[in-house]
């Protein structure tokens, strides 16, 4: 994986020093809260329901064991011994003190980590495919391109006061595991006439007005990757709405301007930027690629796995994914134990994951957008040992992509913008469907919960989505059906009137009953929904 050189390291240390100075000025009264807020946000520090919250970046979701151990250390030393992995492949701590924040950033910097641009109206941490470098279906590893964009976007002088936040996702396979079309800019690396280039989408997003990003350009040569992004950002910075923060995302600009006109503007800007030296020298991409070369895979390993332990076989079938290298597999650690808090991990669990990564996965792990942790490169022959360690730690839920593998935002338990709690609903649903056989019977079913319209829990992209709303001061939940954040991207639709907390659990059960009754061979919940349509489900819900 990528390693900092002295330049990268110095940039991060400089940022720590700068932020330390800003915090001192705030505490000394030289900065008002209004002036300080954007500065702390650009360092990932929010003020949330109970305390400050710190969001630490995990660039393109890749971590080594030392970094994971540092995350555990921070949880233990500065927080309450746990952290929350997010849908944007980052981690959040909920109980941070402002006075500690500079020290935390200094600790992170020692392992090449930071919280730079994890919040604020700037280009955020760039997300990618959690199986990058390991998946059998990828064209190239997307992370070198994401790293190039990370460098370009870090401390970008022109784009640090955008109309609103700006999120990139970069993938390189036809299967979309990163909700790429639901990002402000989505990039798929593709091949044309033997050359690699970027297919650019722009103007996707969730939030209160979800939109699927339209195609902006089919092929941008790698040599122009950065200048094309610069052109889009400049058009957005100049024309994005600033009168209403709910209409300030690029998706609104693309929508209001129309994709065609938007593309015209971008192309004009891109043409203007030619010859301005925006792009990195070709040698830089080569240098970065060097860090993402395959680890030293053993050859001649067997693909045989002993399935005689039935519990192991269940985990194997559900949580293990095909690897490009014979004898290897991708193993996913579910952070969704039945009744647990989706995405939360204690410092002890982080340490266990670090140990497993170090021992079995070439020192690497990944954070997924569905809030799980991946061991990307494990030998098939080690899977049983890994599983046993997970079982010992009660960390071996075999529920990947099943109904209890729920994405849930922090909701009203932690978030000051929330209307309703998300976590208890996730817990109750997981409890209702706790028999794994029943879950497997329902097959792939992506259930996603947000505690308010901001959609941090991706409810628009859930096969089943749940949205918390405030109904006269009490929590209420709307049910949505038919969304997808994958390559068959679609936006979920609201079924009708909302439910209370117990009602929503019943409602989820009812729609799964409809699916079981209606499905044809091999259909997932989503496929059945698309075929039979909303009415059949509505009937079951509202009679």
């Amino acid at each position: 994986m990528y390693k900092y050189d002295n330049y990268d390291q110095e940039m991060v240390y400089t940022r720590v020093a700068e932020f330390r100075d800003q915090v001192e000025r705030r505490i000394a009264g030289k900065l008002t809260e209004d002036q300080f807020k954007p500065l702390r946000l650009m360092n990932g520090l929010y003020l949330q329901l109970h305390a400050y919250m710190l969001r630490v970046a995990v660039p393109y979701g890749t971590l080594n064991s030392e970094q994971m151990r540092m995350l555990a250390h921070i949880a233990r030393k500065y927080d309450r011994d746990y952290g929350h992995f997010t849908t944007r492949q980052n981690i959040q701590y909920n109980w941070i003190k402002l006075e500690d924040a500079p020290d935390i950033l200094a600790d992170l910097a020692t392992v090449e980590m930071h919280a730079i641009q994890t919040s604020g109206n700037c280009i955020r941490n760039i997300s990618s495919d959690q199986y990058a470098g390991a998946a059998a279906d990828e064209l190239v590893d997307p992370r070198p391109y994401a790293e190039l964009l990370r460098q370009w976007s870090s401390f970008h002088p022109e784009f640090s006061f955008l109309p609103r936040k700006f999120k990139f996702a970069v993938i390189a396979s036809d299967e979309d595991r990163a909700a790429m079309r639901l990002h402000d800019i989505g990039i798929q690396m593709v091949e044309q006439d033997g050359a690699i280039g970027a297919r650019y989408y722009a103007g996707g997003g969730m939030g209160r007005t979800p939109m699927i990003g339209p195609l902006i350009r089919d092929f941008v040569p790698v040599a122009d990757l950065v200048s094309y992004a610069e052109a889009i950002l400049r058009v957005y910075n100049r024309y994005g709405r600033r009168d209403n923060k709910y209409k300030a995302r690029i998706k609104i600009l693309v929508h209001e301007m129309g994709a065609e006109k938007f593309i015209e503007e971008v192309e004009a800007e891109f043409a203007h930027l030619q010859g301005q030296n925006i792009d990195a020298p070709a040698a830089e991409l080569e240098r970065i690629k060097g860090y993402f070369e395959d680890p030293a895979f053993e050859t001649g390993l067997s693909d045989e796995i002993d399935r005689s332990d039935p519990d192991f076989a269940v985990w194997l079938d559900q949580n293990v994914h095909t690897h490009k290298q014979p004898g290897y597999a991708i193993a996913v650690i579910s952070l969704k134990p039945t009744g647990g808090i989706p995405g939360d991990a204690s410092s002890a669990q982080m340490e266990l994951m670090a140990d497993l990564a170090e021992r079995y996965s070439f020192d690497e792990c990944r954070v997924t957008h569905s809030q799980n942790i991946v061991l990307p490169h494990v030998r098939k022959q080690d899977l049983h040992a890994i599983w046993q360690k997970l079982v010992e730690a009660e960390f071996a839920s075999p529920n990947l992509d099943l109904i209890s593998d729920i994405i849930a935002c922090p909701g009203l338990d932690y978030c000051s913008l929330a209307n309703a709690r998300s976590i208890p609903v996730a817990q109750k649903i997981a409890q209702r469907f706790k028999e794994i056989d029943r879950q497997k019977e329902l097959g792939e079913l992506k259930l996603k919960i947000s505690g308010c319209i901001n959609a941090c829990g991706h409810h628009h992209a859930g096969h089943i989505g749940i949205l918390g709303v405030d109904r006269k001061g009490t929590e209420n939940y709307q049910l949505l059906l038919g969304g997808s954040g994958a390559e068959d991207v679609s936006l979920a639709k609201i079924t009708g009137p909302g439910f209370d907390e117990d009602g929503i659990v019943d409602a989820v059960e009812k729609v799964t009953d409809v699916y079981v009754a209606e499905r044809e061979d091999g259909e997932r919940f989503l496929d059945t929904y698309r075929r039979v349509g909303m009415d059949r489900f509505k009937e079951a819900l509202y009679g």
Partner: protein
Amino acid sequence: MKILTGNDLKTGDVVWWTGYDWSRHVSDAVPVYDNVTDVIAREIAKRAVSDCYTVEAEKTDDGVLPIHIKEKIRATGPTVRPDLKISPPDPAAGNWVI
């Protein structure tokens, strides 16, 4: 009645106005009246709190608690982590935790 709340500037802790200082425990909160704007301005200027505002509250068997669920959770801690509760625990929240 209304009570005054904010977040401690340096620690971020949720704090409640006791009439002369800030407490982490909502049970120490006292009712505030129309003249509260002076207190707000003074406490922000002193940088005791990063921001502060009033919320509707009522007396319950457990002492003073905000009425709205969001402020109630702010006062008592996340409902899904009873181990992290700030006193007094909200007995009803237990029903949620599995």
